[in-house]
């Protein structure tokens, strides 16, 4: 192992499809005509509900599954077409971590991390040095000779990460790596992934069903539903201007901005006759995130607004705000036009009579 800094590799999905044929002859389309470019050196999140096809997508990147149509290029190499030794060589360039860690119970921390190096035929002395390095990097110096059964979940995932990095891969795949961990441990593991991405420059592709994970570490995100990518882009753009209903529903969970139950209960999708209030979601982003827009709205148009819920958050280092408002429905169009003119995004959620 040299001191070279491993460079990330890009991952390109080109009209990839994967259909499973069940023993009874029926077939399931798990991934359907997916085209996606995962940028080299970036952290990209794929988010979707259970059964959406996330794991299948990820497992095609290191050839654990073969696409039934299309191509997957990792650093320019066609993984789906690779066989035998060539495929194993690609796999050494792609580390993987798992929800349930998948550590060998019969090996110590050091032994687990050594495994990929043994498999690659690295000489013993080099293995020892490299393992010590990795253990130090993930902060497990004191646990080196312990067995996985003696470790906490967070420590186990650190071993998983060290093991995945052992062969100096260009890509790290993460299949729900924090789903079995408590929120605090999740944060420390995500931070470790961030550090690794920054220091080693390797590409990280992670899948999750939690928008919070995407928000916390991914610069790019793709939303998958029923095997199709329904939305993809920079995390900030997707968070501040979600296009697809699935994305919105994932976001409503994470922004912490949800309608109070008493309003939700009496809200109509269509405007009822008579006087009523319009319920709006307003998203502030970029340089407007901290502008006092509501005060200006009241001053310039004389429209009074009720604030139902709201929060200002950060993605990467960029702030964005989310407000739920209600105002006189007759003034709704005017107010929305005003806000949009000032660079804010608005969405009518419903009406309250």
């Amino acid at each position, binding site marked *: 192992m040299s001191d070279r800094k491993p460079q990330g590799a890009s991952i390109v999905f080109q009209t990839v499809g994967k259909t499973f044929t069940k023993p009874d002859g029926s077939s399931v389309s798990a991934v359907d005509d997916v085209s996606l470019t995962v940028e080299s050196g970036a952290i990209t999140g794929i988010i979707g509900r259970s059964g959406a096809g996330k794991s299948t997508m990820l497992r095609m990147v290191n050839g654990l599954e073969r696409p039934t149509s299309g191509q997957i290029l990792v650093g320019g190499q066609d993984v789906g077409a690779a066989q035998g030794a060539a495929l194993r060589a690609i*796999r050494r360039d792609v580390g*993987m971590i798992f929800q349930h860690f*998948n550590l*060998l*119970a019969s090996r110590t921390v050091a032994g687990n991390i050594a495994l990929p190096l043994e*498999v690659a035929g690295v000489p013993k002395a080099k293995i020892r040095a490299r393992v010590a390095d990795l253990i130090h990097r993930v902060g497990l110096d004191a646990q080196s000779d312990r*067995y*996985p059964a003696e470790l906490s979940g967070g420590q186990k995932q650190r071993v998983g990460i060290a093991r995945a990095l052992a062969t100096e891969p260009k890509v790290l795949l993460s299949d729900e790596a924090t789903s079995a961990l408590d929120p605090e441990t999740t944060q420390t593991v995500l931070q470790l992934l961030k550090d690794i991405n920054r220091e080693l420059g390797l590409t990280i592709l992670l899948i999750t069903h939690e928008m919070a994970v995407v928000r916390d570490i991914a610069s790019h995100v793709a939303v998958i539903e029923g095997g199709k990518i329904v939305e993809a882009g920079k995390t900030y753009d997707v968070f501040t201007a979600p296009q697809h209903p699935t994305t919105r529903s994932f976001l409503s969970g994470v922004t912490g901005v949800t309608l109070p139950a008493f309003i939700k209960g009496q809200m109509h999708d269509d405007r009822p006759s008579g006087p009523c209030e319009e319920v709006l979601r307003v998203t502030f982003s970029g340089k407007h995130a901290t502008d006092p827009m509501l005060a200006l709205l009241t001053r310039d148009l004389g429209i009074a607004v009720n604030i139902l819920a709201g929060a200002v958050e950060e993605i990467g280092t960029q702030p964005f705000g989310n407000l739920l408002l209600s105002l006189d429905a007759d003034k709704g169009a005017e107010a929305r036009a005003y806000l949009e003119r000032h660079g804010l995004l608005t969405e009518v959620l419903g009406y309250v009579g």
Partner: protein
Amino acid sequence: MSANLINLLLEATWQTLYMVAVSAALGTLLGLPLGVFLATSQRGELLSRPWVNKMLGLVVNATRSVPFIILVVAIIPFTRMIAGTSIGTTAAIVPLTVAAVPFIARLIENAIREVDSGLIEAARAMGATPLQIIRKVLIPEALSSITLGLTLAVVSLIGYSAMVGAVGGEGLGDLGIRYGYQRFMPEVMAVVVVILIVLVQLVQSVGEWIAAKVDKRAPKGRGQ
């Protein structure tokens, strides 16, 4: 008990140990690869040879469904071919081994199948070959169960070894029948039974001790 009898008992114990040890060793030598193959060769598995898997499975089942005492007699020609004779303690090792191989293979197959498929997945993702996965993941991870399985096999072989008197195999069982039963010497029968109990107990304890020693999983009850 006469010195003569004590000598007979010592000799018989030695013969039993000899038959059991050699057939267990041979049975493991052949049963281990067979068991590993059975556990990894169904469709879509590591070695994926579904047809060979089915054929071997049939042979294993067939052998295992023949009662041991019938097997001993049925394969006398084979025994003669291998051992040069069909009579005696060494010859008895042949049917014992023939019975042990499929038994041990199934025990090892079960032990290997218990290994979490996530570990195979992780090893494949590392770029391990199927043989590396077997050597570095499956066998080490299954070692504790394999040890318990082999313990069970040895205990069964001790029992089987008592039946090989039918082809002139000697040992404790044979001694018990000839002296204890046919010559009405209940004290010989009693001593034989006690020695067998002690042997089985010893094998079981040593087996369990080794199995616990190699088991690095969380102790039962504590969970993961």
